[in-house]
């Protein structure tokens, strides 16, 4: 027999009366900490401290300690010179250029690269980018994320940011896809399923795909543009809210309230954290390494075939006129479709001003989701994919062009 909802609740009340005794509730230390981290007056400073701590550890561990202190030395001082000396062909040979080092023109001479960002060979940059730069970044990101998740901090963060996210048609729990997206956009797109309406899921997917740079990209930015990464992140976050606000106004549909369930704090289990970090990190390697290698290969071939120069020339008015960046940016933008980290690494080898660099990095983030994210959105819904593409086209031209305008007003463009 089928009961109605009211009948069920009535029955439950009777059952509960007979079987459950609610004793006097003891306020525990966990509850006290729980209150402090949810009440806005104390919770917001705590949230800022937590996020700041997250960011500092991320930067110092992945960027300074591991990549600069360790991996750069191995790759630039040992691996690259060794490859340059033993790989057959040498500078100027097309196969050598693809696999090891294409070199660059300096004072009219073809000169060998002296670091693993510039060389851009499959066996040099193709290994340095995923293992030397991105792996430490992803590892530390997931370690800290697993800790926050298991302790139970995420729902508190969700409660605190709820009001703000309502302005862009979402609610507190949208913080979950957002933060997951800072690791990798692919699981972030999957996690949009926790949002209730199609409108909310679309807004979330579009925002993740355009304005949330993934961990791989952040890791490499930390190394390539350490002095302007803060600005890039801030500019993207502002874009996230501006675009969200617009989408919320434009897209029909509901954005309902939710009642959030805040679970009690819990002591994190080492075993679970280890497992999660391992799964996510190895998952990253499995997806990223083949794509980075493939990306290097394709981009090098397109360079040699002249396709990239051709694209650069064709779109030169857009690059130089609208965005104010060198037309050589065409190459990284092709690479960005395969891997964003690769694209940023490639940008670092192009000669340009600090401000042009910022614009290019912002463009790489916004202009197109990487192929894995692209496939994931398609899996969720092809309509969402089409919509996202429209959104990011507008975002790339609008937000990228605005940056150019800002530089012009500052007199640095």
């Amino acid at each position, binding site marked *: *027999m*089928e*009961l109605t909802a009211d*009948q*069920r*609740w*009535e*029955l*439950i*009340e*009777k*059952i*509960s009366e*007979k*079987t*459950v*005794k*609610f*004793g*006097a*509730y*003891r306020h*525990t230390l966990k509850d006290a900490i729980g209150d402090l981290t949810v009440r806005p007056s104390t919770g917001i400073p705590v949230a800022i401290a937590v996020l700041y701590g997250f960011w500092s550890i991320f930067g110092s561990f992945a960027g300074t300690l591991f990549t600069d202190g360790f991996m750069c030395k191995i790759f630039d001082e040992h691996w690259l010179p060794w490859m340059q000396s033993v790989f057959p062909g040498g500078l100027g040979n097309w196969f050598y250029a693809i696999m090891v080092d294409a070199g660059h023109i300096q004072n009219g001479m073809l000169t060998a690269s002296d670091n693993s960002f510039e060389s851009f060979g499959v066996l040099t940059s193709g290994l340095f980018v995923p293992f030397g730069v991105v792996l430490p970044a992803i590892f530390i990101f997931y370690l800290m994320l*697993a800790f926050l*998740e*298991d*302790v*139970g901090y*995420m*729902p508190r963060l*969700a409660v605190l940011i709820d009001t703000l996210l309502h302005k862009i048609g979402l609610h507190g*729990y949208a913080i*979950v896809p957002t933060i997951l997206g800072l690791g990798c956009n692919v699981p972030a797109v*999957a*996690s949009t*399923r*926790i*949002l*209730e309406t199609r409108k909310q*899921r679309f807004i979330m997917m579009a925002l993740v795909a355009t304005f949330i740079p993934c961990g791989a990209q952040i890791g490499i930015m930390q190394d390539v543009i350490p002095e302007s990464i803060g600005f890039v992140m801030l500019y993207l976050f502002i874009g996230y809210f501006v675009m969200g606000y617009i989408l919320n106004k434009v897209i029909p549909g509901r954005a309902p309230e939710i009642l959030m*369930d805040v*679970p*009690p704090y*819990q002591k994190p*289990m080492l075993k*679970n954290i280890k*497992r*999660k970090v391992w*799964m*996510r990190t190895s998952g990253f390697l499995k997806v990223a390494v083949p794509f980075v290698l493939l990306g290097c290969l394709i981009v090098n071939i397109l360079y040699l075939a002249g396709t990239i120069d051709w694209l650069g020339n064709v779109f030169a008015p857009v690059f130089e006129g609208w965005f104010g960046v060198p037309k050589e940016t065409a190459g990284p933008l092709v690479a960005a479709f395969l891997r964003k980290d690769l694209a940023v690494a490639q940008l670092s080898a192009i000669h340009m001003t600090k401000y042009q660099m910022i614009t290019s990095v912002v463009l790489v983030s916004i202009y197109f989701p990487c192929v894995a994210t692209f496939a994931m959105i398609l899996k969720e819904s092809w309509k969402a994919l089409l919509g996202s593409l429209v959104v990011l086209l507008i975002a790339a031209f609008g937000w990228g062009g605005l940056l150019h305008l800002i530089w012009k007003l500052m007199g640095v463009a």
Partner: protein
Amino acid sequence: MRVLLMGHPNVGKSVFFNRLTGANIIESNYPGTTVDYTKGYMRQFGEDIEVIDVPGTFSLDPKDKAEEVAVKMLRDNKDAKIICVVDASKIERGLYLLLEIIEEGFPVVVALNMWDTAMDKNIQIDAPELEQILGVPVVPTVGISGEGISAVVSKLKDITPVDADAIVERMGGI
């Protein structure tokens, strides 16, 4: 035999799943970690039993896409047995989903999970009495330490669907 792990979001279904199947799926302390179902196998009663970790749902009346997946899983597996994972510290709302599953005619074992949290909150549940009333096995469990999980599994073998009418009758009608 096929077993579905059902329950509210964040009651520990994924912890159960990893324990039962030795698989590795992401578990976290927030609702909505599992948004798609995952299959695994455990060897029990001399057969390979398929275990499916279903996304958390509050009721069989879905309100988001993850819940739709959950309800669809139930509808597509009419011959499955259910382990209904209930947060013992929030037992009343867990019973709602449980009643719905019972009404649908599925054989169920109830895992009263987070038993330790309920104790901390000074909530005392008379599990044997609850078992009497519902007519289905009720086992207190602590997923993260593994307490009670083997008891849940051992009950799976002999469970059969129960009649919701009988529950109503035992409570003196509604």
